């Protein structure tokens, strides 16, 4: 319990720091929201009046406090770029899409990489392992957006399995939406799958050298029972950390891949918002994504405790 509480306090402090840095960064960078909203031809009086209205002239701490208290309640203010639209409503339209895409990529990674990694370790140094090594090496070197272009070409233009650019909103037809998202999900997942396969393989092989493995053999275990009953749980411990890091990368990857596949997710929202200096939106997206990464790390810490009994003692 103490461990959970400690991790939870760390989580809150981290989130506060991130919010301060995010807010601070957008106050420092050049560019005036009032100017960008009114256009360059606006008179200084108009700009000043709007600044007053938007509260941009208040001291920074006051603005931060106001923003933070709104953010905690899920209210990130109004968008500069779209009139009379709250940031929250912009996000709530796009978050589900990005969430589905990310979860799908993550599941693909788990479902494909784990069996392959274990297989590769079992046959280490022999045919399947050498073949897998080659393939993973190649796939790892290909960036997601390029894979996205290849997939669009192959499955969209040549095989016509999906219509590039014709995204179906989830509330219209969830099935069709998921079918469309499979392809960007693959583009995000493939390089990560290659990494996890390699990482898991090496982790399993390193565990195989440990003394407790010799003990397990001495009790009459077969090779596969040593692997499944003893080695895997130990080998998963470093892989969990790696997966947590990957989640941040999946989110970052989805921002780019959404562009390639014209998926109207958070990534596209973020890019248009940056281009239009729509700071409330950018702040909110950055906050969301970082918060998500931090929260996932928190959950991973809890997961650790379940997998590795030594953590409870160490605290």
């Amino acid at each position, binding site marked *: 319990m103490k461990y959970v509480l400690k991790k939870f306090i760390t989580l809150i402090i981290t989130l506060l720091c991130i919010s301060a840095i995010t807010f601070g960064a957008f106050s420092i960078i050049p560019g005036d929201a009032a100017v960008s909203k009114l256009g360059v031809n606006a008179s200084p009086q108009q700009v000043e009046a709007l600044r007053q209205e938007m509260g941009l002239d208040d001291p920074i701490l006051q603005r931060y406090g106001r923003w933070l208290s709104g953010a905690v309640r899920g209210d990130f203010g109004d968008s500069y770029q779209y009139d009379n639209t709250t940031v929250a409503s912009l996000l709530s339209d796009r978050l589900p899409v990005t969430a589905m895409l990310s979860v799908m990529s993550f599941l693909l990674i788990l479902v494909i990489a784990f069996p392959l990694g274990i297989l590769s370790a079992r046959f280490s140094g022999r045919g399947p392992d050498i073949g897998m090594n080659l393939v993973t090496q190649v796939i790892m070197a290909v960036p997601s957006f390029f894979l996205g272009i290849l997939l669009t070409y192959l499955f969209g233009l040549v095989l016509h399995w999906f219509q590039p650019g014709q995204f179906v909103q989830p509330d219209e037809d969830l099935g069709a939406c998921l079918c469309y998202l499979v392809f960007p999900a693959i583009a995000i997942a493939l390089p990560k799958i290659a990494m996890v396969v390699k990482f898991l393989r090496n982790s399993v092989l390193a565990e195989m050298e440990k003394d407790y493995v010799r003990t397990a053999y*001495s*009790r009459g*275990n077969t090779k596969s029972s040593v692997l499944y009953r003893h080695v895997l749980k130990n080998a998963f411990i470093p892989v969990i950390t790696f997966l947590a890091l990957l989640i941040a990368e999946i989110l970052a990857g989805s921002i780019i891949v959404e562009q390639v596949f014209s998926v109207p997710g958070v990534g596209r929202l973020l890019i248009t918002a940056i281009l239009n200096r729509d700071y409330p939106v950018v702040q909110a997206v950055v906050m969301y994504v970082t918060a998500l990464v931090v929260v996932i790390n928190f959950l991973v810490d809890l997961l650790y405790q379940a997998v590795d*009994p030594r953590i409870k003692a160490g605290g």
Partner: protein
Amino acid sequence: MKLLEVDNLTIAFEEGRERQIVVEHAGFSMEKGEILGVVGESGSGKSMVAHCLMGLYKKNEKVIDGRILFDGQSLLAMPREERRRIQGNTMSIVFQEPMTSLNPVKKVGFQVEESLSIHRKELGKQEKKELALQALRDVELPGAEEIYESYPHELSGGMRQRVMIASAIVCRPKLLIADEATTALDVTIQAQIIRLLKKLNASTGMSVLFISHNLRVIQEICSRAIVMWQGKVVEQGTVEEIFRHPKEDYTRRLIAAIPTRKKRRNP
């Protein structure tokens, strides 16, 4: 009646075409219920022989020649599956490293009763637990129930070595191999473990092959011993014979190397 006969055992490391002999024409035998000591410096091949008896080979290790008769069965001639039925069942081993020989993420209970799960499939969960608890009591661990539920990192080195012994004797083996089992422990714990092994030997008739580089320890636990040097068995006999009338030059040096309590007289 002989429990174990090793004849002409030769083991080598093979790397590509190169072959390095590490155990050469080793031969010795053991009676039922006996504690036999194996003494020699590190690299003399004594652990190699132990692991070979257990059927635990490293990647490049290969038995080139020899015969091992255990309880009337020829170990080197039998298929792997049959060999596995002996491992942890009628023959088991305790290693030198109590801190790393147990799986850190598995409960002690699971590890102690694992040999039962493998070799006595007919036993129910409760029966296995009873036998595991009995084994933990046999190795004189206080609070067996509590230890059954704990993880290795919660125990001290001496306790872990007792857990290892408990897991090795849970199937009531005919032969227990103690491969430098007391070397990593401090002297008082070492003495306790030796007393424990002697007690288990006396009460259950389990034979013990006790491997150590420490002649004093060998002297304390065994009546008979063999001396290994550079992969060869250079001497065997009762411990008294070996101490009193060492035949080999190496044995003499080994005995001379034992620190004694007597102070040297100044001339």
